[in-house]
């Protein structure tokens, strides 16, 4: 009797421990499972690691140049008027080195931005390094603050490339040395790109930049690319071309001194666009086999459209580097067509993702 009772009790307890699990498949999209077996995503990672290493190297160089400038300013007791009058040539050289280092560092990141911004586990670095705003836009602001050697704090100042570029090219007054005109060549006028950045701020910014660049490099090494990452990278980055074209239209290369954009003065945005698209093309080539499996015609269409967009950006840059000056209207016409292409590509890739039952991230 006792044995029977024990068995009944055990049975009831076992039943109690089981939850109902009555899943149905009716709401599961009727899509083809992901065909990941024949997709080699290693080239994406290799591409990324090549660029993260380049970024670290170039940002370290930037930091070294910032330190040299800092030491110059320190030797003059941070009296920038005295610095300029007594060490004009050294200051000119230092700023030239800084500008050169920035121009070298920028494409190292821009060419991989498509991957970094499109991969959810790395996307925050895009905010930190290139896309984040300052604290006036909390939703999109960078998560870090800077404290200089002198103890001055800059709370959520903006992304690193913006900080460095606006400081060394003089387009952001709050990062410039106070109380002195940055007339580097002594001709009595301040013309672009003459600038006298606040050395204390610049050193803090570039030092932190190095830290984050190294962090990104580490994270990239840990990253294992997935099909979702690759599809998300293509879908997320491709439509942002309009923002880049908008910035191109407003940048110094188009609007000259009427430019509203404080950033992007050193390199034309077209260069960024071309580089980013190069990254996107590489990623798409990796996922192409999986797209072909579910929709061969769609795969061909996307490949054609992506190549077309890449070639357009390249052609425009060639024209610009050849001396062609685009008006705002020209830039708008050309940029809008590129945006249209980009949105179409994003839509097409979304179809393939849907057919592969992949979840695209925001």
């Amino acid at each position, binding site marked *: 009797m006792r044995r029977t009772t024990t068995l009944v009790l055990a049975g009831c307890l076992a039943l109690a421990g089981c939850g109902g699990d009555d899943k149905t498949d009716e709401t599961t999209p009727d899509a083809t499972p992901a065909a990941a077996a024949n997709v080699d995503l290693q080239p994406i990672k290799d591409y990324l690691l090549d660029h993260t290493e380049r970024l670290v190297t170039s940002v370290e160089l930037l930091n070294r140049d910032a330190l040299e400038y800092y030491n110059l300013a320190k030797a003059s007791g941070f009296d920038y008027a005295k610095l300029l009058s007594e060490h004009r040539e050294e200051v000119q050289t230092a700023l030239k080195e800084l500008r050169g280092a920035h121009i070298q560092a920028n494409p190292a990141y821009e060419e991989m931005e498509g991957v970094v911004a499109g991969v959810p586990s790395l996307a925050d670095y895009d905010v930190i390094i290139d896309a984040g705003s300052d604290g006036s836009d909390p939703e999109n602001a960078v998560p870090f603050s800077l404290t200089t050697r002198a103890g001055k704090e800059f709370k959520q100042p903006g992304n690193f490339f913006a900080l460095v570029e606006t400081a060394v090219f003089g387009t952001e007054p709050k990062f410039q040395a106070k109380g002195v005109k940055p007339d580097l060549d002594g001709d009595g006028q301040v013309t672009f790109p003459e600038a006298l950045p606040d050395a204390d701020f610049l050193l803090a910014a570039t030092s932190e930049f190095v830290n984050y660049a190294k962090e990104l490099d580490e994270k990239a090494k840990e990253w294992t690319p997935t099909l979702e990452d690759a599809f998300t990278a293509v879908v997320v980055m491709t439509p942002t071309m309009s923002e880049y074209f908008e910035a191109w239209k407003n940048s110094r290369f188009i609007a000259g001194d009427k430019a509203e954009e404080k950033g992007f003065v050193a390199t034309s945005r077209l260069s960024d666009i071309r580089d980013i698209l190069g990254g996107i093309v590489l990623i798409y080539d990796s996922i192409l086999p999986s797209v072909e499996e579910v929709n061969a015609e769609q795969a061909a269409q996307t490949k054609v459209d992506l190549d077309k967009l890449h070639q357009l950006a390249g052609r425009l840059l060639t024209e610009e580097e050849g001396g062609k000056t685009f008006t705002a209207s020209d830039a708008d016409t050309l940029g*809008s067509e590129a945006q249209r292409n980009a949105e179409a590509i994003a839509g097409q890739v979304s179809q393939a993702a849907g057919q592969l039952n992949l979840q695209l991230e925001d």
Partner: protein
Amino acid sequence: MRGLLAAVAVLLTLPASAAAAAPWQDAGRVTDGLFDAQTELVLTGPRAATKDVARARAAYAGDLRATLRAADRDADAAIGDGLKAAASAARAGDQTALAAARGSVRAGLFRGAYSVTTEATARGDAATAKRWLLLREYRTATRFTRPGAHATLALDQLARGKTTPRAAEQAVAKDLLDAYQARLRELLADARRGVEQNLPARRAEAAAQAAGYFAILAPRYAQDRGEAAERDASAIFAAAPLDIEAANRALEGFTAAPFTPEEAARRAQQLLQFLSLVPVEYGRGVKDDHVTRDFEITEAVAFRTGAAGAFGDLRDQLAKRDHARTEAAARGLDELGRLVGTAAKQSDGVPTHAQVQRAAERTDAALRAAMPAPWTEKTDESDYDLIALTLDRMEAAAGAGQYRQAEQARLEAYAFFEFGPERRLRSFDQGLALDIEGLIWFGAAGQDGLAKQLAQRAPRREIRETRLVLDRKLSDAAATLGDSANKATVVTNSAIIVFREGLEGVLILAAITASMVAVRRRLRRPVFAGALAGLAVSVITWVLAQTLLRSLERYGEKLEAVVGLIAIGVLLLITNWFFHKVYWSEWIAKFHRQRKRYEKLEKRGFISAQALGLFVLGLTSVYREGFETVLFLQSLQLSAGTATVLEGAGLGLAMTLAVAGVTFYFQRKLPYKKMLIVTGVLIGFVLVVMVGQTVRTMQGTGWMPITPLDVTLPYWSGLWFGVYPTIETIGAQLVAAAFVIGSYFLAQEMKVKGPRRRRAKTGAAPTPAPEPERELVR
């Protein structure tokens, strides 16, 4: 002869070759040619541009043209006119005119492709439809929308024979119309930008393309608003220059791809939920007319914006039902926007909570009066939107280093989950519910939980990784609960819920009453009386939950915490009583033959003093489980109705009573001493588990802090033993265990060792030999 045969062979293969070219490729050659012409006008001049236009015109031929013309003559005519205009513009070097022509041609191609695709789908020709579907527009990805794949998947299903042509056609039309309407709105904004920034080419192209897209939507427009309205709107779009404001007004409230009834109900629920949260968040952020917490005001603004978006989607349908109330709701939302917007811009002199509350209530009343009944019935889907919105705010706050606000948002998101989909989810997939809970709290699925990460001020990217996993689990949960369960499932799950919760109550009662044998048998009476009262109160709670207390869900966790605290308090007293008066007294009684005196003492005063406590213990032990059961069953009732749920509940109750009977019978047969030991252990165990679970509940209500421990525990440690990886929960359990053990040894000291030492000092008689156990059992 051979030559003739060869020629025939070539002729026979020619149509096949022409048909083999994809429509998107042919159309691409047309649009590429026109864009190249536009580029050449910028870069070189009219000569190259003219050649490119000629190339584009030549590309609009063959199968592409023939198929389009057969499906939609007007589209074909528009393309032809556009190409002619492009040629003139290129020759004249007129960028603006060329841009307009490009817009017309592109729209014409999409319009024709739309007709071909939908007609092919309607007749079941999936292959043709799939080819032509590639020539289309897509929605632009935004924060709340992604380019969907509904049309593509519908055609896949049609090709596999898993759907009917009619259903596939509806899905394809809906997807495409939605995309074209979204793009039409963007084109009107583009045209406005062209005016504001003095970009004539931009304006011209956008206006021409917008007119072409409206032509795609026109039949739906006529269906919705009548032929006359459609003619007026078409005239507005066809006018040159386009009157952008008039075009926008014509589109106001029009939805080309109307929601299905389920989608509309979901959107309505979002609207009502978002609206109800505006005054809640606002109230937390102001005191009188001063802003005290910016974050809460930002939340209020976000929910108002969400409500306005949902209202925009439903406005047309609502207006058809009740125009006056819909307009009143629109005014109410505008007013709410002004009120919360003021607080977002300044800190003093802002509207009071009462003002915002009144505005929200007026708007809610107008909406509910205008809505059909199914729209006002709560569903889970809007809860997922609320959870997502609130988690977005959490991420943003963490990203800005505002971890306190992030934690507030996390708790809110959890509340939306716990009093929304979780109850049903735990009925259908307990593992998934536990995973989601773990990800929101201390970890699950190999990932740290958000509570732990926020407490440790983890960087946003780590929080993001957890959020991604959580989003997938929430998506799985939505899919799991997406269908209403069949009757057998609901009966089974109701029975299991009642049985599982009931078993916990039985365990507690068994632990408490195990020692109530022989002379203390009557102590069982107040315990069981309390248990029956707990059952009765649970039933009353169920009844009230159906009528007056729907909003009790929001306070459910606080009520749970309060009931849990009462139960712990009483159990602590009982534990103490057990060791002092039962365990060691019995031990003593065995050796000192003082049982009778002890029984007299108990009869006189002790029982009456404890009766109330035992009654309360019985009540709280059962009601604690009963309350949770009511909330679970309520959520099942939403999908299956009361009768089905009661059927399952009755079955579960019967099983519980059966087990209870077996347990109490079994309990009586234990040897007394063993039974005392078992009882003591069980009471201690129950107390420790209850303490862990109640502290965890209090952390959820914000009454206790959360200090995570860096350990990973399996999900069942919390579920069955109340063990959660925080200092507060484990600390409280250790204190409770120390109390139980301390109580045991203290009672031993007071009842046995102390008196023994005193007797040894005074030289009193030694303890007599123990009596046989069976004499103690009646």
